[in-house]
């Protein structure tokens, strides 16, 4: 193993094997550096949360590959401003956006293949380029490219400690096959993701309710490197108490359920808590603009659980789910099957049905079909739940990512007390909070990872050589 103990020199050590890590490793290797990638997960789970991604958001001045039309810097930045409510670093954000355009060609050159937008994602067709086969195919392609270039990989290598002294990382300790091995790389790229799979940390940040959260991504993103660096005084960015969560199928696995646990039924449902009571306007806005708030809404309910209830008229209006919905001939039986109080659910459904008004139901637009004198109201798509069979899904908050991360410069360099650490760079989710301080913008995490992965890889290699 290069760089381990007294073995031959190691120029760049990359921690993690997701999109940011791999683009960094490839970039560093192409300049001529000896590169070693340490991945905590076994090979089958390599790639971190990149496994669950499917596109990246790409600026383009005119039609580019699979992307039609144009998506300029200002429109892109405007989109980012809107979702983050201004909680972004404009210089870093604009750097990311401007660099995204050349990423398209770079990715193709390194084995990534694009495809027209996946079905059900029309709203992203102009702004986001989809990888053929999704994120795991991207990880496979980058790993092949990297390995062919001579990048070395060790899987099941859990980095526990980076020895920081006098603004340098002197040593990196990793646990490999039960033994601690020390590496002495000239440069280090930390691209090991966020801490959303570290339940104890989530509980510290969020409170005991976090024990009931499901984690949509890799169980290996435990933030061990992030925590180790924070403990040694590196500068951080992003709200430590925040995470991005959506409402997902309550039957999903605790970790790694990914895309298929998503439910798009809420606009066509009423959502009740475990007492059978509604708590938020289900028809507030078009689903792509609202789906990200429901994780928090459900998280705020008792036991962090909710139930979406709808009838047979709505079953085909949204993407199919991985698990079939709970089905019953009557609302009473549905309540029983979902473990809800019969009386409460029947009362809620009846009250809702009685406040629905006549009008034209138009599922793909804001149809203004709102309830009358209902609290909370349902502002669109409110039509009675009255056609059996009736359906229900259990909802739970599913955490996608955390915001707390390392504060980096435009050259991806990590800092402590405002000045750079000489040989430490960061890329991907571990530093994304610098740019995406709040909210969520589809495909932007992959853009940050690719742009900063490339920068970090080049800078780290330049320092080492």
């Amino acid at each position, binding site marked *: 193993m290069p760089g381990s103990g007294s073995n031959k020199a190691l120029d760049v050590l990359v921690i993690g094997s997701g999109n940011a890590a791999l683009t960094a490793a490839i970039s560093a290797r192409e300049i001529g550096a000896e590169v070693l990638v340490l991945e905590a997960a076994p090979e*089958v789970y390599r790639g971190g949360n990149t496994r669950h991604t499917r596109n990246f958001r790409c600026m383009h001045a005119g039609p580019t590959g699979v992307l039609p039309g144009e998506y300029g810097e200002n429109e892109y930045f405007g989109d980012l401003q809107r979702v983050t409510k201004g909680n972004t670093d404009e210089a870093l954000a604009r750097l990311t956006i401007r660099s995204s355009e050349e990423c398209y060609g770079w990715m193709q050159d390194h084995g990534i*293949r694009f495809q027209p937008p996946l079905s059900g994602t029309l709203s992203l067709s102009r702004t986001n380029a989809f990888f*053929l*086969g999704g*994120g*795991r195919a991207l990880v496979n392609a980058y790993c092949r490219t990297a390995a062919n270039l001579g990048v070395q990989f060790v899987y099941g290598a859990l980095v526990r400690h980076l020895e920081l002294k006098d603004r340098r990382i002197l040593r990196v300790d990793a646990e490999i096959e039960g033994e601690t091995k020390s590496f002495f790389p000239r440069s280090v790229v930390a691209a090991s993701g966020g801490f959303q799979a570290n339940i104890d940390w989530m509980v510290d940040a969020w409170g005991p309710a976090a024990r009931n959260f499901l984690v949509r991504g890799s169980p290996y993103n435990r933030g061990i490197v992030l925590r180790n660096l924070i403990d040694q005084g590196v500068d951080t960015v992003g709200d430590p108490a925040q995470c991005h969560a959506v409402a997902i199928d309550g039957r999903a696995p605790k970790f790694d359920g*990914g895309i*298929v646990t998503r439910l798009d039924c809420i606009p066509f449902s009423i959502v009740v808590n475990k007492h059978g009571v509604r708590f938020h306007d289900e028809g507030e806005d078009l689903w792509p603009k609202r789906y990200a708030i429901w994780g928090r809404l459900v998280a705020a309910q008792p036991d962090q659980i909710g139930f979406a209830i709808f009838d047979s008229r709505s079953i085909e209006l949204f993407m*199919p789910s991985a698990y079939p919905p709970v089905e019953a001939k009557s609302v009473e039986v549905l309540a029983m099957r979902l473990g809800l109080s019969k009386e409460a659910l029947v009362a809620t459904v009846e009250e809702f049905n009685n406040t629905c008004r006549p009008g034209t139901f138009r599922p793909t637009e804001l149809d203004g079909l709102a309830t009358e004198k209902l609290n909370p109201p349902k502002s669109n798509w409110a039509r009675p739940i009255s056609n059996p069979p009736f359906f229900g899904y259990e909802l739970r908050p599913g955490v996608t990512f955390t915001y707390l991360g390392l504060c980096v410069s435009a050259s991806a360099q990590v800092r402590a007390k405002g000045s750079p650490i000489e040989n430490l760079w960061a890329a991907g989710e571990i530093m994304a909070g610098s740019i995406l301080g709040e909210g969520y913008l589809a495909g932007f995490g992959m853009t940050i990872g690719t742009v900063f992965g490339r920068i970090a890889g080049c800078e780290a290699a330049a320092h080492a050589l």
Partner: protein
Amino acid sequence: MPSDAITEARRQIQICNACRYCEGYCSVFPAIQMHRNFAEGDIVQFANLCHDCRGCYHACQYIAPHEFDINVPRALASVRQQSWKAHAWPSCVGQLFDRSALAFSSVMVVSLAILFWLTTAMRPASGEGFYSFMSHSLMVAIFVPSFLLPLIAVGISVRRYWKAVGGGSIRWQYIAKAVNSLARMDNLSGGHGEGCNFEDGDRFSNARRWLHQATLAGFLLCFASTCSGTLLHYGFGMEAPYGFLSVPKLLGVPGGILLCIGTAGLAWLKTKADPNLGVASAWGGEMAFILVLFGTSATGLILFAATGEPAVQFLLPLHLGFVLTFFLMIPYSKMVHGFHRLAALLRNAEMMSEDSSLRSH
């Protein structure tokens, strides 16, 4: 059909339908996405539409040890294998699929024995070329029924398939689409033209696509060669042996060479492929099928090269033994995949056209 394979495939396909990351790889996923619920016939159709490129497995974030344990290539291979068994005619011999390798070897031994015995015991008094070892009329008497009966069996099995998947009346445009897809083997292209993930993990390669087409083209050329010989014999009174520049040889020699290269290559690839992505019990039979095809073409070429040599005495029955084995095993071996695949592509063309006409209304 035993329902566990169908149930397992349905479970996986429901997850695929909520994910859709793989829809660019092949025709199976767009077909899945036309449904929300999956009847048995739908799943049998997906299984036969699947060309086993394995791209979806390597792209999948839910393969074992993930609790979803997705392995679509294996799930569909399993349904495919069972559907061939269930549709086979006569139904009682459908079980041969489970023992294909054994069946191949047994049929092979018996065929060889019969042909060696016939060429020795019933050697004609006169005749030219290989007709001096076996008369034309005897060859016809053996091979016409042993070709036509299996073809009838395949016809019945495909008809059963068509009914099971709910196929309607066939239009020219479906045939054009299906044949076009077969000719380009676009379901093994990976969607980007770089091929499938068969012989070396997640590396894309067109090796299997090219080798399959060499096999298919070789097979069709050899078949055309036989037809042209029949035509020359009965239509023009021109009897074998034919010279190198005759139509049967101009078709048959390149056909035989392509078939040899294609089958040898496919057999080699098969030894490299991950057995976890297929049905373990089908491997031997599939390999036997490929090797019998290889043997048929190789012995045919050697037989031609040995024209006039005494070795023809052994080579002729050897070659004819391979041919007979191949013919007899057509309905109960991997060979049925070709007929079912063509039917699945036709059905898919039909479904796509129904879907687009629904959308336009």
